[in-house]
């Protein structure tokens, strides 16, 4: 009976499962950069993804990490929404609109000592429909991984939000972007 229980437990532990990435929370530094750059409000437009089957999730060993917002493009949009809203610069009624396209979403927890991830996106600001800013930003992250999946997978899951914060930080600290939404 005990042996059977152990076999069932092992099967449960090693079978593939789906985990949600941690929800985004704004970075005070990003909010501060937005506040200091001005007070005019902007609208948040579409955020899309160039990746195929992007909502299927990111493979983390035997697990699959999915976005808590339905897709990783929606995760990026939520990140921008939170930063702009916390800084008091988000509105639904402005001629300035920020949009984006996720072009890279790589996250690798297969290493037994180091995990690494990279995110990239093209961000566009339009005023009255005309582009006034378009630039690609990329962020990379490495973290200490582990041999055991029980440790490595949750650790990787916790790093995704930090990587997204880094990507958004690249945008919100770009003087050309801050000028475009001034």
């Amino acid at each position: 009976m005990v042996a059977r229980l152990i076999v069932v437990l092992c099967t449960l532990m090693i079978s593939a499962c789906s985990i949600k990435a941690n929800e985004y929370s704004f970075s005070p530094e990003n909010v501060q950069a937005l506040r200091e750059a001005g007070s005019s409000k902007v609208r948040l437009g579409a955020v899309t993804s160039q990746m195929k089957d992007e909502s299927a999730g990111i493979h983390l060993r035997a697990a699959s990490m999915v976005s808590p917002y339905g897709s990783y493009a929606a995760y990026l949009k939520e990140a921008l929404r939170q930063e702009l809203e916390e800084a008091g610069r988000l509105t639904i009624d402005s001629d300035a609109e920020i949009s984006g396209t996720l072009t890279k979403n790589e996250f690798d927890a297969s290493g037994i000592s180091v995990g690494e991830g990279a995110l990239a996106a093209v961000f566009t600001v339009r005023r009255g429909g005309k582009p006034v800013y378009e630039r690609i930003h990329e962020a990379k992250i490495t973290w200490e991984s582990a041999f055991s999946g029980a440790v490595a997978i949750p650790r990787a899951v916790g790093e995704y939000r930090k990587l997204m914060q880094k990507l958004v930080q690249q945008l919100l600290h770009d003087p050309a972007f801050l000028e475009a939404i001034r």
Partner: protein
Amino acid sequence: MTWFFRVPRLLAVGLVLVCGACSHPIVIAPDLSQLPRQDGASKVDKKVGLHIPRDKRELRVKTPGGGGDNVDYTPYADLEPGLYRTLSNVFSLVVMVDDPHNSERLKMDGITYVFTPAITTTSSSRNIMFWPPTDFSVTIACTATDSGASVVWSSSVAGDGGLIPVSDILKDFGLAGRRASANSLLRLESEIRAASIFRK
């Protein structure tokens, strides 16, 4: 056939090797919807600073979980947005401050008070069958200093995660910690709001 009967034993040994006394990373960041943004005229019209030393931001602490395992997390990094939201709900403007002793800079930037939190946590599990903590407490001891670095106010608040069904904890391993963080931040906001010194 004897090898067949050894498989469960081997698996059991493997299980112990993989899971034995692990430290499992969790996140204790509060759900910010539990700390709703307060906008409007009731805010104190002052610019204040939030100081979290750089080494504390990276600090990873380890506390007990269940079944002999531990959990590890970054309390300062996880609570930073919540602390910022808490102060933003009381004061008209909040900025991050690197050095609370740089009086000249604080005066130049118009910063009236600097808040410095010290966070301590405890965790445990009432269930020996799984590692995520069922009980969690977060204590925030916060001091406010003026532009001359003199302490003008201090308070310590504690929050716990409450009684959470195991089924909810299994969906979010850090849930007890996340709820404890939110509760302690709500208490901190009440304490700061009630302190008359900030309204002078």
